[in-house]
């Protein structure tokens, strides 16, 4: 046995020595930035939740990415590449990949856990040589992966993340977000709520106990209190909670006449269903009809909650029923390929990929610093949200926000939300410094 071991060790040591000897002359280290693509193709990393509470969103995001890649490579009908304009002129995407390099991609599972998402992103950067990471369906994951990309020197194009922190206190120079945020939801919702429900309401908040829940609660609270509402109580619920009856039961006797559910995904489906079962929607409080509000809506959630969403107000980043040219082209392209309309998560991910490609074309390089310079202050249109600005100070997109309501008479299983108002971008714009945080400077890695 001893003999066997020593032979093996000898082989290993010998192999290592020979390897080192052979290789010394061929050390290549001259990259001007990390993962500079040298071959005929460029690799993007799509890091989305494939398991866990946001797996539905993740699957839809992946569909959108695959669609975006085929459009960039010149397959299919081109989708929004036909409508996308930058600074009033046509985009630079020609269907020949990005900067003449064919777009390839790798996928990973974030599991909606910051640790797992970072491990997945690191393997994309270190093993697969991805030049850009995008995706995610939770703010915790977005903030964690954005920080990783900043350290590593890779561009991060955030997927669905709604917390103020992503482009607020945790903003990073290498990170960009197209999706809207809690502050914008609050600012867009409050006037509509005041118009519909009056200005002397008493609100009760149920808030998912994590980063996104906190900023959403705060945003809705501040903006509704400015309209004269009063906040009776704000109760935090664990993220993993599935039975909300013990949280709903005290609401009716609290003196409140509005329930705000700062919940997303499966959480919202369960809490809303529970609230309806407890008869809150038919109840009277303080001489008024009891009302429920869901600050962040998505079609996938509305589908999960079924008939319970009818008439309930919320906000959303994008909806497939929008009638502008960009949205129509995207819905048509997505629908042809997959057989159903895209969700807002799919939309934002598709748009982020297109914006990255456009920025690379404008900069003439994949160097993160070039991309950052091209995206900062970029004004574009034709991507479904009307004229949009990528603000240089915090890398947040500013565009119109949709206030929506659960449809009373849906015509199909996808036709669940109706647009109540398109709040203009100016009304939801805020000063970049209010959330603190610093961008730092762009990091090209090598």
């Amino acid at each position, binding site marked *: *046995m*001893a003999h*066997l*071991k020593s032979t*093996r*060790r000898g082989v*290993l*040591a010998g*192999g*290592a020595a020979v*390897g*080192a000897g*052979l*290789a010394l002359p*061929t*050390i*290549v*280290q001259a990259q001007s930035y990390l993962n500079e693509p040298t071959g005929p193709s460029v690799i993007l990393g799509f890091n989305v939740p*494939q*398991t866990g509470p946001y797996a539905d969103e993740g699957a839809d995001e992946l569909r959108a990415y695959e669609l975006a890649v085929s459009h960039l490579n010149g397959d299919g009908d081109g989708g929004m590449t036909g409508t996308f304009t930058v600074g009033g002129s046509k985009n630079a995407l020609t269907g020949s990949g990005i900067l003449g390099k064919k777009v390839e991609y*790798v*996928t*990973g*599972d974030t599991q909606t*856990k*910051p*640790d*797992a998402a*970072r*491990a997945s992103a*690191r*393997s994309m950067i*270190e*093993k*697969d040589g991805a030049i850009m990471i995008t995706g995610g369906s939770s*703010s*915790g994951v977005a*903030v*964690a992966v954005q*920080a*990783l990309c*900043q*350290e*590593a020197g890779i561009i991060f194009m955030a997927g669905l993340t709604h917390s103020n*922190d992503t482009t607020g206190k*945790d903003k990073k*120079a290498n990170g960009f977000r197209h999706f809207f945020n809690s502050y914008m939801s609050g600012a867009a919702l409050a006037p509509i709520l005041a118009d519909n429900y009056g200005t002397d309401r008493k609100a009760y908040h149920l808030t998912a*106990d*994590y*980063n996104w829940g906190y900023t959403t609660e705060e945003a809705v609270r501040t903006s509704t209190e400015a309209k004269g509402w009063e906040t009776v109580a704000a109760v*935090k619920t*664990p*993220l993993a909670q599935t039975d909300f009856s013990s949280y709903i039961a005290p609401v009716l006797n609290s003196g409140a006449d509005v329930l705000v559910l700062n919940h997303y995904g499966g959480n919202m489906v369960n809490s809303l269903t529970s609230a309806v079962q407890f008869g809150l929607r038919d109840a009277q409080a303080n001489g008024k009809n009891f009302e429920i509000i869901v600050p962040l809506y998505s079609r996938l959630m509305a589908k999960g909650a079924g008939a319970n969403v009818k008439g309930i107000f919320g906000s959303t980043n994008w909806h497939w029923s929008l009638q502008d040219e960009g949205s129509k082209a995207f819905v048509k392209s997505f629908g042809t390929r997959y057989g159903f309309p895209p969700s807002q998560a799919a939309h934002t991910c598709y748009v982020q990929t297109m914006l990255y490609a456009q920025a690379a074309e404008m900069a003439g390089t994949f160097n993160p610093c070039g991309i950052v310079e091209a995206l900062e202050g970029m004004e574009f249109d034709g991507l479904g949200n009307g004229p949009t600005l990528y603000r240089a100070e915090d890398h947040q997109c500013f565009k119109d926000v949709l206030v929506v309501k659960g449809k009373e008479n849906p015509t199909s299983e996808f036709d669940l939300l109706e647009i109540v108002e398109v709040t203009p971008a100016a009304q939801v714009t805020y000063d970049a410094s209010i959330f603190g*945080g*610093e961008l*730092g*400077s762009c*990091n090209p890695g090598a």
Partner: protein
Amino acid sequence: MYGLNRKDTVLLLIVAILVAAAPLLLNPFPDTSAMGKTFNAGYPDLMQRFVIFGIFAIGFNILFGLTGYLSFGHAAFLGVGSYAGMWMLKLLSINVIPAILFSIAVAGAVSLIIGWISLRRSGIYFSILTLAFAQMAFSLAASVLTPITGGETGLQTSLNDPRIMPGFLGGGTVNSAGNIPAPSLLGMEMSESFILNVGPWAFTFNWGYYICATFMLLAFYIAIRIFRSPFGLMLKAIKSNQQRLNYTGLNTRPYMLTCFVISGMYAGLAGGLMAAMDPQVGAERMQWTASGEVVLMTILGGAGTLIGPVLGAGLIKYFENIFSKINKATLEAWFGVFPDWMTDLLVTLVYPFIGKGWHLTLGLIFMLVVIFLPGGLVEGGQRIARLFRRGKTGAGALKPAE
């Protein structure tokens, strides 16, 4: 050598050589080949994970393998170590050494408290107590202690951290480029790598990995010394019959507590290294699934053996990071040579076991190991070695004893 007998020295040397050559051994396929893109594991993040979880499992094995006390809350110490290390990186210095030392110290202190309470019971009650403490730690970190732990988002370094040490010791809030400095030692960042190209092969020698590997070898050496010491013998006696020990008038509690704290400090070291390699700590690092994972690693590799837990940790991490990334498109490329209907059939048959289904494959392997190799992978290795030896003695002449 250094208090080890010949057999243990050989074992330590083999482990050292394997660990040192890991960047070569884990990249057996050319970099650009299809096999390489899928199965090569020699990239920094995964290599670091191999040795860090190796340390975690070695420490767990000191408790479980020697005394038979099954702790179901060891991830709590890993998490506590990570948070402690992170705070050092934020407050004191970006140098990883103070962070790692502080991680060990804090995890040791926490394990002293938890151990002091939990060790009043043994068997299943001990397991449940540790599980309860770990879940408590997880819930605290995820919500109540948000100012300290960053809640669900986790804790990261930021541009406003004080880092009060002088610059040459790793202090300073920002680096020369105006960004958050990355964890470093001796002026070299953990992410710095030296890439060796040999023909189509590319081998990555990562600074952070070799730091982790050094700690792992040190941890392994200490574990061997503990296994062979009178203290280790006492722990083994506790495993075989604690009652009898008590009746002989021996108080086993101090031995158990010492063992528990040592084990917790190993977990703290692993946690500190995790924070140092990738400065981000999330609460889910403390979740019960993470505690369960280290139990799996130890049993899969061989509880009570020296090298077993390291092998188990490697196997599980390999599955988690490599198998989980194989997707349908990869499978279709593999089986593309067959006729269409056969490709579809093969993809349908194999798909449930890879990608998202990697847990299923791991579960099957775990079942097979537990049923047929109760001593874990180490027992498998021993059986193969015995086959070889039998062959040798059969063919060769009888040798006189040394």
